């Protein structure tokens, strides 16, 4: 038999298995990547134009020591990462299990649920990174990025922010039986977080109790990390705190996802 040698081959490691699962998403992405890159660059350019030329001129004086545009752009970048995470790890994950049955197809093969999760997460990370990189390029066009090191740091910060949401989101979305529930969470959890995490204004302007809540929100950590890196005001301690918080979310999400994926893919 042609395949006998392959079948008897030593068992592939977890990462190799995850890459097999990821290959599917790459094949699918091959169809659409050009379009998504254009959108990822054009969208922030339009946004930054509107803010810089419009809203920004209405804001008096510098915010946290920067022009409103320079203050706002990295905040929007982090918020966009959250939004992308919701699409990729919320809607896409749910539909991969229920509607498109991508997961069940993969589950019939040697791939284990954990591999299927990891493969998809690697792809989501790639998507988050590319979107963030496109956004940072748009920022550079507006003179908001001083050098390549800052560009890279900010891109990674936004990717980590997205991932901190994507991991727990995927763990939850795979369990959701009715699609509209995702919209509800988007409207009542994601949107408020979007508004109160210092994307549009400095959280220091908030009254003390609200400020305490903002500091607890994961998006604020992403916003502040991206912003201080972009503005060159980052301090080691605070940055490490942000990174630690976001990484912890990734780790907890991954732990839960391993359980929920197994439960939902091997029912």
């Amino acid at each position: 038999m042609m395949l006998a040698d392959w079948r008897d081959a030593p068992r592939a490691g977890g990462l190799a298995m995850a890459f097999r699962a990821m290959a599917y998403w790459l094949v699918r992405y091959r169809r659409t990547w050009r379009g998504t890159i254009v959108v990822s660059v054009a969208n922030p350019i339009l946004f930054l134009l509107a803010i810089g030329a419009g809203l920004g001129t209405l804001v008096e004086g510098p915010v946290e020591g920067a022009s409103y545009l320079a203050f706002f752009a990295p905040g929007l970048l982090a918020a966009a990462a959250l939004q992308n995470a919701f699409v990729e790890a919320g809607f896409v994950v749910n539909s991969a299990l229920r509607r498109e049955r991508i997961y069940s197809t993969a589950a019939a093969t040697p791939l284990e649920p954990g591999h299927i999760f990891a493969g998809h997460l690697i792809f989501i990370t790639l998507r988050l990174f590319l979107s963030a990189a496109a956004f940072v390029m748009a920022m550079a066009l507006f003179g908001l990025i001083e050098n390549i090191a800052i560009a890279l740091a900010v891109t990674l910060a936004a990717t980590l922010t997205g991932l901190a949401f994507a991991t727990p989101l995927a763990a939850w979305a795979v369990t959701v039986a009715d699609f509209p529930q995702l919209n509800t969470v988007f409207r009542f959890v994601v949107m408020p977080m979007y508004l109160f995490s210092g994307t549009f204004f400095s959280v220091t302007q908030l009254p003390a109790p609200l400020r305490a809540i903002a500091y607890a929100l994961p998006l604020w950590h992403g916003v502040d990390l991206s912003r201080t890196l972009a503005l060159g005001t980052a301090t080691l301690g605070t940055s490490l705190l942000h990174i630690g918080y976001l990484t912890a979310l990734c780790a907890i999400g991954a732990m839960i996802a391993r359980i929920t994926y197994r439960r939902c893919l091997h029912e």
Partner: protein
Amino acid sequence: MARLNPLILATGLEKTYPARDRKGAPFRAVAGVDFQVHRGEAFGFLGPNGAGKSSTMRMLGGVSAPTAGSLRILGLDPVADGRRVRARLGVVPQDDSLDTQLTVEENLVVYGLYFGLSRRAVKARAGELLEFARLEDKAGERVEHLSGGMRRRLTIARALINEPEILLLDEPTTGLDPQARHVLWDRLFRLKQDGVTLILTTHYMDEAEQLCDRLVVMDKGLIADEGSPRELIERHVTREVLELRFPPGENEEVARKVGDHVEVLPDRLLWYADDGEQALAQATEAGVRPLTALVRRASLEDVFLRLTGRSLTD
């Protein structure tokens, strides 16, 4: 030898699904079944909707853990050794789970990569399988644009990418036109000849008679009986069947009049008899006046109705 070492051995196999929400109750879809499948056999599951066929198939496919009983596949435990078991299985699920956005070939390639085949091997294998499924000229076409029959053929081709030893087919020909079904049967026949063990579920009795060496009839999560199509016919039904039709609502009444060798279906009565004509004469004598009467040879369908029919009229 083969008799001693079945390829698949299920004993007291059960599947209870947990309650969907707090108000619901757990549901036992498979309620303790025993069966064995030997290498090279074609083994069928027959049963009405909800009998637990797909639930059993998913356990066989190593993607659903039994909640009680034991299951060995290829000498392995499909839960603890799921990965190794699945590497040697081909699975055709009840609903096509093809990726409609990808092309026919991409669907095969991705699936082959899941099994760890190299890109080169998978391309070559995809070519062979497209030919096998008569889809050579559709390789670059998106699955969206395929007909139902083509999709089914592609799903079967995909299940063969890893040259499986066991092929699990959940209703392989449901929704296909007669020609497409015959093409599929021919393909399955060839696989069987190549030594692939076939396990299938079906609602088509002719399919079961054509393809299966042995089959079980399932009902409400249990096995009602097991045997070759011929054995089952001999065991459960007479040589001939008299089919009688009456105006709506009269079936039960007539049935009471003529005795317990009749099966009441929603639209007709089946009267089991070794001599159908004689039974008809008897019925006429008893004053039964059917709208239509038909005598035919007994088939697997009658076995099915005998073993599970009463649940249809519930």
